[in-house]
């Protein structure tokens, strides 16, 4: 019994500590963004790694998401004789919900894991200690460019996802299933408001922050992992955890943000 209480206490302390560390990490990373010297190149490099290199996978996922939405929507709407609403159904689902969430999940899998592994390896091979020793703030030098890049890339990727998704929906709905092109776009124009676009953009901005925060912090604190953050195994465990945690966080925050903004 005593051992159980001990274990529970130990676990509670570990997770409270971890939460505190994550909080301090977020604050120091945001401060790092505003600390001079300001350098554009590291940010551009990260935008390339997080954003540009994700464009293909985002476009691919977006196209098929839009296509399947059109397919499902067409057969559902046909039962009510309102296939003219297909355009707005596809656009609203993408812009408000699927665009931000799916693009965030794809970026988590592609770039989030890479961020965590990169920082984790730098931690276990003393490269982050070396930065500290050279009086170079690792938050400013290493983490801040990833934060800025993620906050810029995610909304941009979300827009690409939405546009390609609508195009995918158009191909299936209009070109394959024969919905009227004018009805498809006029329905969309009538139903999508600025608020919907704002909601989608805000969500993807928030998801960008969540992903880069969780993935960087898991890599940064890999040496403090409860299961032993040593060597390649420690980094691989931290990376898996980071991807799972980020994905869950994206879905949870999606619900919370929707509940607030709707």
């Amino acid at each position, binding site marked *: 019994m005593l051992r159980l209480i001990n274990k529970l206490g130990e676990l509670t302390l570990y997770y409270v500590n971890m939460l505190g560390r994550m909080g301090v990490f977020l604050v120091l990373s945001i401060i790092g963004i505003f600390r001079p010297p300001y350098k554009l190149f590291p940010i551009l490099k990260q935008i390339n790694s997080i954003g540009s290199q994700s464009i293909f996978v985002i476009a691919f996922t977006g196209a098929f998401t839009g296509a399947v939405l059109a397919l499902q929507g067409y057969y559902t709407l046909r039962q009510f004789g309102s296939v003219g609403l297909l355009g707005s159904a596809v656009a609203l689902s993408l812009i408000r919900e699927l665009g931000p969430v799916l693009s965030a999940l794809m970026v988590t899998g592609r770039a989030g894991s890479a961020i965590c592994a990169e920082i984790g390896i730098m931690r276990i091979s003393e490269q982050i200690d070396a930065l500290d020793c050279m*009086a170079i703030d690792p938050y400013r030098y290493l983490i801040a460019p990833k934060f800025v890049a993620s906050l810029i890339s995610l909304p941009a990727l979300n827009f690409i996802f939405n546009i390609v998704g609508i195009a995918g929906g158009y191909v299936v709905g209009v070109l394959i299933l024969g919905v009227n092109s004018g009805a498809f776009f006029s329905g969309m124009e009538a139903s999508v408001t600025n608020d919907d676009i704002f909601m989608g953009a805000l969500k993807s901005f928030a998801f960008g922050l969540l992903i880069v925060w969780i993935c960087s912090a898991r890599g940064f604190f890999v040496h403090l992992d409860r299961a032993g953050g040593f060597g390649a195994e420690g980094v691989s465990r931290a990376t898996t955890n980071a991807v799972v945690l980020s994905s869950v966080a994206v879905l949870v925050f999606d619900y919370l943000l929707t509940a607030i903004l709707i």
Partner: protein
Amino acid sequence: MSENAIIKLIDVRKSFGKQTVHKQINLDIYEGKTTVIVGESGQGKSVIIKEILGLIKPDSGQVIVDGHDITKMKKKALEKIRSLFGVLFQSAALFDSLNVFENVALPLRERTDMSEEEIARQVDETLGIVDLDGSQDKYPAQISGGMRKRVGLARAIQLSPKIVLFDEPTTGLDPAKTEEIYRLFYSTQRKLGYTAVIVSHDVPKVFKLADYIAVLHDGYIQEFLPPEELQRSENPIIRAFLESTMGKIYSSEAEMVE
């Protein structure tokens, strides 16, 4: 002693979980001198380096660097103190996504307002000092262990630090490369005049470089003496350590006959 202690460890105690690594460390590092910290593996030699840098906080005690207790310092003040240091890590800790030139240029790019031309000139000069001309474009994974240490040394001395800390600078190197690192250490220290702290178990070779030797054993600094005096020490712990690393030391002819 008349010398000025630039680093002082006072009653430093440090535990990791249930294991107490440092029970009570008292150590003075004198300005401009070379202090070598020796001891068997697992005695916490590298931990002393990390305590001096403020990377590990002792459980109790003081670490005074240049007159300031760094155990009580905030992040920003600590950064300022760290600018006094150059560090050569055991693993060299080079940035593996940057090439040799970028690694050595990093402190200059991040901590000075020098132009790219000035940086290139200075990096080339430093790489020349450590015999690494022509390796600028190579990545750490493409060069040997000895070369990596030399790049680490070039990076450590780039901003002409007041104190350079060497964590096992010759571990994993063959005797020829070890000699080379020591030669470079000697020449750079003569040129730049920095205070050196070397953590090593390369006994007795490293004694040749040392002004003082600190022997760490069982959580305490057992002796802090110049190398010649250390070798004459009657302290049984020191004698046992020296015998285990240098072979049997005979203090009298009678002992030799036995």
